[in-house]
């Protein structure tokens, strides 16, 4: 209850308090409560307006050609008015977007390989996308924008699923000519080095050994080793599960 704040409701509440009644307190609270927490009226027109606004926003989504249009003179995007980062300017002038290459090809380049200049600079192993499906934005002038799906081969390791091609609108893409395709595909990635193991820190090791002794009754024969590589996706679910498991376990070892 906020005191010293001019409110009509509190006045009303105070007035009922003055009546002396054995069951008055409860009745007062109920009536005060009913006055304070008014039942929320459903605002139908506001709901409808919200739905209409959501629908209109859905309908007026900018097309890819509008979103990613670029003024090459000032390096600004007319849609948002933002300027591209300076380190990208040279690339934007020299290289081309993926769909600028796809527009001039039969069947929009389905089945062809495309690399990115940044991959060529960063990795020595070949990385490329093989395009399987294309959805072009037909409102663009030179069929310059759209979405593409394909199979990625990163650093020589091919993935198994078709995914949407990332960063299609970046001025970074290069077509792999047919006479160079075989050279890229023939590359065999070096096998991954085996996972290294390392002894645990001393306190943690002592805890593990004590826990094992308590649980099994005998001393652990082999040294517990910590793998230096863990295939665990650290997400909120993972941490929540870990907490729940920790709660189930009782106390600490040692």
């Amino acid at each position, binding site marked *: 209850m906020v005191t010293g704040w001019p409110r009509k409701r509190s006045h009303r509440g105070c007035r009922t308090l003055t009546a002396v009644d054995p069951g008055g307190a409860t009745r007062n609270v109920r009536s005060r409560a009913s006055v304070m927490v008014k039942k929320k009226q459903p605002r139908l027109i506001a709901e409808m307006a919200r739905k209409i606004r959501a629908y209109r926003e859905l309908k007026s989504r900018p097309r890819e050609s509008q979103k990613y249009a670029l003024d090459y003179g000032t390096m600004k995007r007319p849609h948002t008015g933002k300027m591209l980062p300076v380190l990208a300017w040279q690339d934007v002038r*020299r290289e081309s977007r993926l769909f600028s290459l796809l527009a001039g090809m039969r069947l929009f380049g389905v089945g062809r390989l495309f690399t990115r200049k940044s991959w*060529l600079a960063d990795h020595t192993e070949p990385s490329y996308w093989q395009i399987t499906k294309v959805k072009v934005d037909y409102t663009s002038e030179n*069929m310059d924008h759209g979405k593409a799906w394909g199979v990625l081969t990163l650093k020589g390791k091919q993935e198994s699923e078709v995914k949407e091609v990332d960063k299609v609108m970046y001025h970074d893409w290069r077509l792999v*000519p047919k006479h160079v395709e075989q050279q890229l595909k023939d590359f065999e990635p070096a096998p991954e080095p085996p996972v290294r193991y390392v002894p645990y820190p001393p306190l943690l090791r002592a805890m593990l050994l004590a826990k094992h002794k308590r649980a099994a009754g005998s001393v652990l024969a082999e040294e517990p080793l910590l793998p230096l590589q863990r295939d665990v996706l650290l997400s909120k679910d993972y941490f929540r599960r870990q907490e729940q498991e920790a709660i189930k376990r009782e106390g600490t070892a040692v």
Partner: protein
Amino acid sequence: MAASIWKRCATAAVKVKCLSASLPARRWLLSSAYTDATVWEAREKDPQNLALLATTMDRTYDRNLPVSSLSVSRFVDNISSREEIDQAEYYLYKFRHSPNCWYLRDWTIHSWIRQCLKYGAKEKALHTVKNKVQYGIFPDDFTFNLLIDFYIKDGDFKSACSVVEEVMLQEAFDLPSTQIVSLYAMSSYQATRPQLAVSEERALGASLLICGLQQDNTVGLSAQLLGNALLGKVEMLEGIHAVFRGMPLFWGHGYLGRALAVMERAAASSGDVRLTKDALDYMNDLLQELSSTSDSDASGAESVGEEEEQEEKEEEEENVKKEDQMDEADQAERAKLPQYVTRFKELSSQLESEGKVDSASFQDSVSALAQQNLAAAEKPDLEQYLSRVQAWEADNRQLIAREKEMRKKAEEEKRERLAAKAAAQQA
């Protein structure tokens, strides 16, 4: 019916072959059986009123509904005059900029090129093929062959070379007939010694390289050498990015080095593979020209004349801008030029000593190759074309049947809706 047409084509081909053996020089390459339009005209016709089709398409576009590829193919098939070709071009453009642009049929494109050539609109055909992004015209190999041959017949080697450039951009040098015809066009164009701008040189070099990679003989290797040399010249003048931008070319530096590698391969190969003399001469001239321009650039930067100061300043500004565009890698490439010159001299003397230099000119070797191999290459093409035409007809019939079904279904639904509305109104 198809069998009798095939027999007719075969006998016509045989007749032409006998004739060609007696003629000393051929003005055209592909046999008349290849360019014959009888098979194409003998398809079943689907007569439609063009004005009606046009109005239907306009109304569909106005209502923002997708136009089917069938209507566009019907429009192109039923063209009967030159003005209608312009109208068809407009509708092809609109179709390309609609959601159905993917579904433009192969037979529509083939039919479009044939109609353009029939009604004397070859510039229009070339214009649509060059602006393939806007019109969506991606002809298949047979159609490309027809188009190149048409230009060769007219003696217009420059346009034939632009068509070959389009073939290169699609990397469609799969059929041996396409390779032979394009090499012929390019060699004839080269023989006329035209003055080429840098972009034209780049296009010609790229087409020569990619076409030559498919062939493994004298002609092929010489074409590869010429192609690499031209691309190396562009690389020296403007940097590697100007070479592979927009073209299906490898982005690695050192095209001149690759030209020298072709010469090494020719020298090291044990077969009858040789390099034509005029290709080697051309490369020699090119290297001399490049080294002289690089020397003059170096000397021009040092000397400053008083009267020409302003001109020099403008030139220097241009040079500075160009040098900004050039990377260090490009500068390193330019520095290797003297090494290339010495290596070229070594390799050419080695080739001459091994007797691997063919004295016939590039054009003559290509014509010889054409006379030997073209007839053999045409036969499988023709067979494939006939089977493809039949497949297209089957697809066309299927599309027409599907359209009829959809119309029937739409009418039934409309009738049901009207009946339901009438029933609701009565009740």
